Structures are given as C-alpha cells and as structure tokens.
C-alpha cells in the first residue's frame, strides 16, 4: 500500500489523460489490485472545497503519511515571484508544492512541464514557469539542484508531452512495490530503463535512415522514407521508448508519418518554434542536417551518408507502407 497525492500546476491535464489510457495495469487495477491509495487527484478525487484542503494540509504537516507526491504541470512562479498566476485551494500552488515535496517520501514529476518547464516555459515564458528540479536542461528548477526527498532521492522525472501511460504506471508500481533501488536514473533524472534508447530504436523507418532515403512529402509521401532529412524528425537525437512501447498499444508518431518533436528532451519545443523551424530539417550549406545523430559529427556523417546512398538498394527508393 502506497499513498499518492497527484496535483496539477501549469498543466493541460494531458498526462492524466494519457495515464487513463493505461492497460496492464489500468488505472482501476492500480488502485484495486496494486493497492495504490490515491489520496486526491484533480480529475478523480471525491472531495471538494474544505474537505480537499484538509487532505493537502494533513499531508503537508505529516498528519497523513504521503508516500508519493506526483506533480503534473509547471511550477508557476509569476508574477514577480508571487505565484499568483496559479492559485489553488486559496493559495499559490507553488506554496503547496514546496510543502508537499518536503513531506513526501518520493517526488515524481510527470510530463515535460513538471520535469523542466515544457511549453509554458517557452520563450518568453510569460508565467515564469519552471520544472521541479530542472529548468530546461539546467539543474535547479523550483526545488533546487540539491533537493532530495525524505527517501533520499532526487525528483524522478518521467518526461514526454505527454508521458506514455506505461512509463507512469510501471514506475509507480515499482515504487509502490519497494523496487526503488532498481530505478537507475540518467543525468536528467529519467529512468534509464525507458530513456536510454532512442525514439528511433524500433522505428519502422529505420531501414530508410540506414540508406539515407528521405520522405519527400506528407500524406501518401510517408509510404516511404525517413522523416529525418526533410521534416525535422528528432528520432535519432531523442531518448524515449516510443517505438519500443507503442502509443495507445497501436502506433507511434513516426510510424504514422509524423516527425518526432523530441518531446522527452528538455529543449522541447526546439528552437522555441522560431519561424521556419516547424516540421523542417535545419540544414547547413543547404543539404547537410545541422544536427546529426547523437555521437557523430558532420564529417563522419557525410562520409557515412555518401557510402549509404551508393549502397541503397532499389526497394529503399520505393513505397514500403503500401495499401
């Protein structure tokens, strides 16, 4: 049995909606079979008004033990450090976050917003939004670089916009089952078991990437090719299991012909969505991708590319995902 309190700061509720898509376990299994006790959740909680406030104050004071504090959404610090852009239960939400993070055994950030600010923190960051322990890639965020929860852990980040339901449920189950020691985190506090691999790992277009064959148009154009060359796909530079653990049990963005936006990385949305950057690969000298796959460089990339194109078999220039 583990108690969970889930609150939303500067949030869209997308991670909650994603969570509700879960199967094995689904949200009902988590509670009925795995013994997660959801003390309150904005979409699921029974209590309102004073009754809800009492749960929060009891958790903050320690009167009610809080095993896992989950935050979805940014911590809003504006205007001028007051936090009044986000009032919750009669106080700035950031005050609740401070107290509850200090009281909880384990603190989990779900989704980019809570991890590092996400879209609300995009330039010009109108609400002074930040993540729990990171601001974009910089460690610190709202709770500070040195924060550790009562269990001695930093904030566990489950990024994504939204996070995949399985990433959420499996980590919650692991925490509730006492497997905390098995959750190895990377330098961005992401569980490595999910975020060591690339979005490209398992992508159905990887053979086209191998031979440098580009998708040249959307729609029927995505029956062939790789989206990295023209449409700004970040699959080779983004760490996620999106093509290992499929979305809604069916597909992934890249499988469906949509370029990966890199939403499990702190820089999302990349280049702050500046004119000319959306769904377009940024290039140098008109042909070479400005960003090349992680761990390589332009010279190596070009050499590999030239060889790959020579080696490209005829099928790699034809439609593969046919009717």
């Amino acid at each position, binding site marked *: 049995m583990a108690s969970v309190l889930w609150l939303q700061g500067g949030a*869209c509720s997308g991670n909650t909606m994603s969570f509700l898509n879960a199967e094995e376990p689904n949200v*009902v299994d988590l509670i009925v079979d795995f013994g997660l006790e959801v003390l309150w959740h*904005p979409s699921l909680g029974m209590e309102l008004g004073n009754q809800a406030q009492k749960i929060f104050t009891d958790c903050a004071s320690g009167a009610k033990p809080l095993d896992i504090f989950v935050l979805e959404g940014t911590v*809003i610090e504006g205007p*001028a450090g007051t936090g009044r*852009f986000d009032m919750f*239960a009669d106080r700035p939400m950031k005050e609740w976050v401070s107290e509850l993070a200090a009281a909880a055994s384990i603190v989990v950030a779900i989704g980019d917003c809570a991890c590092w600010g996400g879209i609300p923190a*995009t330039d010009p960051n109108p609400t002074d939004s930040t993540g729990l322990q990171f601001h974009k890639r910089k460690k610190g965020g709202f709770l500070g670089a040195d924060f550790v929860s009562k269990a001695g852990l930093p904030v566990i980040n489950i990024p994504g916009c939204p996070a995949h339901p399985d990433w959420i449920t499996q980590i919650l189950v692991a925490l509730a089952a006492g497997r905390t020691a098995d959750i190895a985190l990377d330098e961005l506090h992401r569980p490595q078991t999910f975020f060591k691999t690339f979005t490209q790992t398992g992508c159905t277009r990887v053979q086209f990437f191998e031979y440098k064959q580009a998708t040249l148009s959307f729609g029927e154009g995505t029956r062939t090719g790789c989206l990295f060359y023209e449409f700004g796909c970040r699959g080779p530079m983004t760490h996620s299991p999106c093509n290992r653990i499929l979305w809604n049990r069916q597909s992934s963005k890249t499988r469906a012909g949509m370029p990966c936006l890199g939403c499990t990385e702190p820089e999302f949305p990349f280049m702050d969505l500046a004119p000319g950057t959306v769904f377009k690969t940024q290039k140098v000298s008109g042909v070479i991708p400005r960003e090349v796959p992680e761990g390589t460089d332009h010279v190596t990339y070009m050499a590999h590319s030239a060889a790959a194109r020579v080696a490209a078999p005829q099928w790699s220039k034809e439609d593969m995902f*046919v009717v």
Partner: protein
Amino acid sequence: MTTVDLHVSPLGRVEGDLDVRVTIDDGVVSSAWTTAGMFRGFEMILRGKDPQAGLIVTPRICGICGGSHLYKSAYALDTAWRTHVPHNATLIRNIAQACETLQSIPRYFYALFAIDLTNKNYANSPLYAEAVRRFAPYVGESYQPGVVLSSKPVEVYAMFGGQWPHSSFMVPGGVMSAPTLAEVTRSVAILEHWKDEWLEGQWLGCEIDRWLENRTWEDVLAWVDENESQHDSDCGFFIRYCLDIGLDKFGRGVGNYLATGTYFQPELYDHPTIEGRNAALINRSGVFANGQFSDFDHLRVSEDTAHSFYKGSGLLHPWEGVTDPIDPADGAKEGKYSWAKSPRYDVPGQGYIPLEAGPLARRITAAAPGAAAHQDDDPLFLDIYHKIGPSVMVRQLARMHEGPKYYKWVRGWLDAIQLQESFHSKPVEHESGKGFGSTEAARGSLSDWIVIENGKIANYQVVTPTAWNIGPRDGDGTLGPIEQALVGAPIADQEDPVELGLVARSFDSCLVCTVHAYDGKTGQELSRFVVNGNI
C-alpha cells in the same frame, strides 16, 4: 431568511481547478461566482513564432481536447493559406476528432460526473444502492469498464495520428499519415468492440439504431420501459435515477446556445474558406437565443474583461482583442475574479448575450430548420428543451446521445477512405493571411483566429468552450452560463454541496482550457505588469 456565503476551493473533477462562490438563501443558491485560477500565457508564446506553431502548441492548451485544438488550428491555417485538402484528409480529420469525443463521453460520465450520483445526499432514494453499485469510483460495476473502455476510441486516433493525446498530424493541406488497409480494418474492429462492450452492451442495452429512433421526450420515456435490457442499462437507470432525485429540476442555465459546428463533407470543403464553412458542416453551426435560430457568424463573437484579471472592460472581437493581465490581488480590488474572459455573441436584434456551448447546444442546433442532405437533422433535444426545459439531466443526456450518432458517422467515414488516393496537398506557405478555424470539442465550440504577417504569427487567439461556459460576469453584470445555471440549485448540506459539483460538472468544462485561451496582443504588457506587481 437565512443567507450563507459559501466558498468552495477547489471544486475538483472538472479538469482543472475551479473555485465557486455562491450565496445561499434558505437552502437555494441565489447568486454565483465562478473563478478560473490559473494563467499560462500561451498567446504570448505563439506570437512571433512559426505560422505552424499552433499545431504543436494549441493541443497542449488542453490535454483533454488536444485533438480538437489540432483540428481547428489546422483549419485556421487552411483558410489563411487557401490550401487544397484532399477528401481522404477531411475524412481522417473527421474520424480522429470524433474518436476523441467518443473517448470523452464515457470517460467524462463515469470518472468525472457519475461519482456524484453516489453522494450520501441521495441515500434516501430507493435507487441509491443501485447507483453506488454501478458508479462508485474504482469499484463500481459500471465505473470499471466505462473508464477502461474509454481508451479504445483513441486507439483509432493513434492509428492515424500516431498517438493520443498530443499528436500534431493534421497539417495545412491534409494529414501527415497515409493509412494502409490494416489501419482501416483494425480501426473498424476496435470501434466494433467498443460499441458491443460499452455503447450497446453497457450504456444502451439495445442496438444504437433503436436509440436513434427516439424523436421526442415521450419516446425516450417509452424507450426506458420498453424492455428489461433498456430499463436496466446504465442509460435507462440514469434517466430513472435523475427523475427520482430531481436532476431534471435544476441547472437550467441561460437557455441560449451556440454551436460553431464540426465535421466537413469532404467534397464541399476541399478548398476551405471562412465563408464556405457553415454550408460544408455535417454537425451544423448556429445560434439559438430566446427561441430563435440564427446562422453563426464569427464576426459577431466578442470578449469582455470587466470581471477578468486583465486591464480594460470593453467588448472586442478576438481579431482586435487586447489582453493585458494584471496581478489578481490588484484585480480583486476592482471586483475582478477570474482568469477566464467573458465571451459574448451579438445575436441579431438581441445584442451581446452569453451563450451556452456544449453538446446540448449542438443538439438544439441540430434541430434547426433548413438542414441540407449531408447535415445532421435531429429534432430530439429541441423537443426535450420545449417539454421539460434544460437541466443537469438534459445536458448530460445530450452528451450521451452523441455516442451512437458519432459512432455511425465514424464508421461511414472509414468506409469512404480511398486508400489509393491522396491524403495531403502541399500548401503554398503565404507570407501573410488571416484565418479562422473552429470545431466542436466534446465540451463545445472551440475556435482559433490567426493573423500571419511576414511569415510569422502576428496574432493568435483561442476561444474555448470553457470560456463560453465558465466566464465571469460581463460589464453589464450579466452572469456567465455556469454562474446562471448554479442559481436555483438546492443545497442540502453546506458541508458537502454536491449540487454545485453536479451543475458545474454537467458542463464538463476543462479549466486547463479556459485560463490561457486569450489573444496575442500582450507581448509588451507583462513587463508593465511586473512593475505593477512590485508596487
């Protein structure tokens, strides 16, 4: 007379954080104030960005209706760039948008709304034990499958969009994907399963065509008693329980409605324009105010900030809107109390009035005269409106009525996809243009206004269904739709005012949606605001 001022913060399960303050006179709500307590400033983020940034950013305004945000932002660009949209792309956009709503119908009903039906305030009802058995959170016999099966329709969304929530696969000129045969056949299979297991098996207790035969309120009552299966279905039980505990008696609201419509007939909208929009819609647009129907015209939409945390108080069309946020602590001194603005519509001959958005608005609009052959033409809810008036129950039934209807439409659209034909026409990315895109999210009318200048966004504005419904008083002191709907609600227990929850939740508002749906002319204002904050 006993007057009580009751402040409820937070009022949960409305998707986002809502605060409600009501005055109660002798056990009945006499006035109400609704407060949206959060601001994120999306419009400022969009300003100066890539014209297509809205396809990525606006779905993240609201994770509940992100697909609806994507749908209307794609059409805003289609109209601004004067694109060609192949028929297949229109069909897939329709399918995806409708599947998001099919997800929302059971998820909202069981996870957010029906829990209140198990409140101890209704323990005296002879049907109470049955309500608890069905709807109790997590353990209810209907709650479990209802919530779990709600994830099925969005599996179909993922088939075409890669994932739900938060795909950006609809782009000006069409969609990014080109399905193979298996994506279409699996979609059919998933929907069939969902229909058998939940829509017919659990919710209706009959075939969807039998339900859709209902044309009047008497038909609905006769349907309940027609056989045991329908009588004992969740829908049959819900109607009986509502009538027993009086959910047909309060939550009336303003009684005036707005639908901007959604889903396009492919051959009528392959060159999307603002002017051609109404005629191409399948789910019709329209306004119903004080008993009169009129055509929807986006130029008649304005927003008022008299009681919202922004400077100024005038009525401005979104294309001319100014948003100038102020510290809520300062706003409170001027009587302002919400981050939501108050959208108003200039009804011909009636002036600017608040209108309710949502499924009931759509259902009433569907009964307007003059439907074309391709358009939804359904008299049921206008009949119910005239016979028993709007209420918590009627609003809820309107939402649920769309399940069978949309299911049939999606199946038809899936059948119409021509797999060998085109799904995208590359658009000319014009340096400048103005666009308007709109749809019906599960919870009501959702619209974008975009202005593109010099290859970037000069202004971007979103008006959400939640803003329509949850907005505060306007400059004339006229209450917003939910505020008005709260008036007259009986409060049995002030320590646990479940009736407030029922009324507010019957609108299925997402506060996360409301509070950042403002225009883009604020780029220079926050610094001024910070100065104010320091004073």
